């Protein structure tokens, strides 16, 4: 079928609007001059400047740590929750399932402010730890939503077979159920890592003064005038994100079966 011309034009326009600003950032990260409007030649000086900037590097380190902890924490809790929700008797699973969706549709600023008020109210000083806690809380929903359908699709008889063959419930979970879920677990882990690393709003409300997550640090820096270094950081973050999403998409192929992020790959 031939695609109507107007639809094609709109599609092109959409992608131009979506990616042009990003392309500008990437281009100017290689600018040899400080200008943000005129491209004057290729250089890597802003990348050098970034790696020389101790404050930025410290923020990068913190963001990586937060992402890693949030990934592991939300995976452990999210997988357990998905298993529990699917297997809960009666209506409990249904209601809990709806509640799970709430964080996904709540404006992030509300979650951010709420977290801030909670920590203040409990008298917990804001720090790396509070960012981690907030990000874990926020990410559990994603993990659970992704894994729930996979858990529901598992054949209960497989776990029963393991128990029948002498495994305890825990062994059946570890040796049979979790391996069956592994592609989805890894894929959602990568997704969470990327989401948390890129997150600004929640990090902004829950971080202490130093160190700050990279996204927050960039925001603060911009308030004092835009440095081309930021372009370099942006480009690197973009590369990292693309790599992670690509990884998330490749994981199921690696296992030779479906079950990764069907949301992303549209399978």
């Amino acid at each position: 079928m031939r695609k109507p011309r107007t639809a094609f034009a709109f599609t092109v326009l959409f992608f131009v609007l979506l990616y042009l600003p990003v392309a500008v950032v990437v281009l100017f990260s290689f600018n040899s001059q400080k200008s943000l409007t005129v491209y004057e030649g290729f250089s890597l000086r802003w990348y050098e400047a970034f790696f020389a900037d101790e404050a930025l590097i410290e923020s990068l380190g913190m963001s990586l740590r937060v992402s890693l902890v949030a990934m592991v924490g939300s995976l452990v809790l999210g997988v357990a929750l998905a298993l529990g929700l699917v297997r809960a008797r009666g209506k409990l699973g249904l209601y809990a399932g709806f509640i799970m969706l709430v964080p996904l549709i709540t404006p992030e600023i509300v979650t951010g402010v709420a977290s801030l008020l909670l920590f203040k109210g409990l008298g917990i000083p804001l720090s790396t730890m509070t960012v981690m806690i907030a990000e874990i809380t926020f990410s559990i929903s994603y993990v659970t939503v992704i894994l729930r359908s996979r858990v529901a699709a598992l054949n209960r008889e497989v776990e029963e077979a393991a128990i029948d063959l002498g495994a305890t419930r825990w062994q059946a979970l570890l040796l049979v159920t979790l391996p069956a879920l592994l592609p989805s677990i890894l894929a959602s882990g990568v997704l969470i890592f990327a989401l948390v690393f890129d997150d600004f709003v929640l990090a902004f409300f829950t971080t202490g003064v130093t160190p700050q997550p990279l996204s927050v640090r960039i925001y603060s820096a911009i308030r004092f005038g835009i440095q081309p270094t930021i372009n370099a950081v942006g480009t690197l973050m973009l590369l990292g994100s693309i790599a992670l999403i690509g990884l998330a998409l490749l994981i199921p192929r690696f296992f030779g079966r479906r079950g990764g992020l069907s949301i992303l790959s549209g399978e």
Partner: protein
Amino acid sequence: MIRLSNLSKSFGEMHAVRSLDLDIEAGQFFSLLGPSGCGKTTTLRMIGGFEKPSAGVILLGGKDVTYEPPNKRDVNTVFQSYALFDHLSVWDNVAFGLRRKGVAKAEITQRVGATLEMVQLGELGTRKPRTLSGGQRQRVALARALVNRPRVLLLDEPLAALDLKLRRQMQIELKQIQREVGITFIFVTHDQDEALTMSDRVAVMNNGVVEQCGTPEDVYERPATRFVASFMGTSNLMPGVYADGAVTLDGGLTVNVGQRSFADGTAVSLSVRPEKIWLSDFEDGMTRVRGTVRETVYSGPTTTYLIDLVPGVRVAVLEQNTARSRNEDRWAGGETVDLGWRTADCLVLS
């Protein structure tokens, strides 16, 4: 070996199994036969420990295991869906049970190898279950259970997913394996041919109760109830009224059946199996009736005739197409034929 007494299971209002009593001897090939939804799987799952009975007792070798978990019972299951571990190789699937029990490495190697040989999968140990055919997956499921040498093996319609030819082949193999290992098999099926050909004993279930339990010959030749008679093949059930050694069919025909323990005037069903009805070479003392051929169905080794005795009373008659029978001897539709059967082959069911 296994004794189920007064075993019941309800799911809310739904009574899936109702006070079941069964005795299964060691080394038997025992079949649970019945239509869909009659409670076969539920019974099997209670024996396996996956379902807690609502009432009753399960004794395994004299020991009460009613509420023991599956991993504490000396029983293994071959699931209808096979339930293989897809992330493990065929070899690791089969070794799973032995590893859980902490069997020594050398012994595991020996036993897994021998079991895979027995089910003719010796070459496929390194393959993943997903790369196997249906029949091969079925064998893996069987090997994975058998390698543990349980006292009882439970099989829930293990051949249901196979095509007819493979199914026949696996029926014979399964029976051979059972004789070889001498383990008690409890085999669930809804296929009466399968149950008849494979079993030492068959329990015919309907609506959560066992209607009859006996040898294949018992349940086929001497069905205890109307349900068993009609479930075990074609049975030519003809409604009528019993009086003084004869049944008067609804169409007015009276058939001598010999003295039975029914009161005169009892509504009964008369049944004569299609292969017990003769169309020629009658013996003395046979019950003889006349009928009109309505349909002739040729199916290779046999021919089935549908014959009206009187309007509204139709029976099926099965004839062997032997070397001596000729095509032109076959009856055609509309022809009038004589039928005969021995009084002993008449079943009278309430």
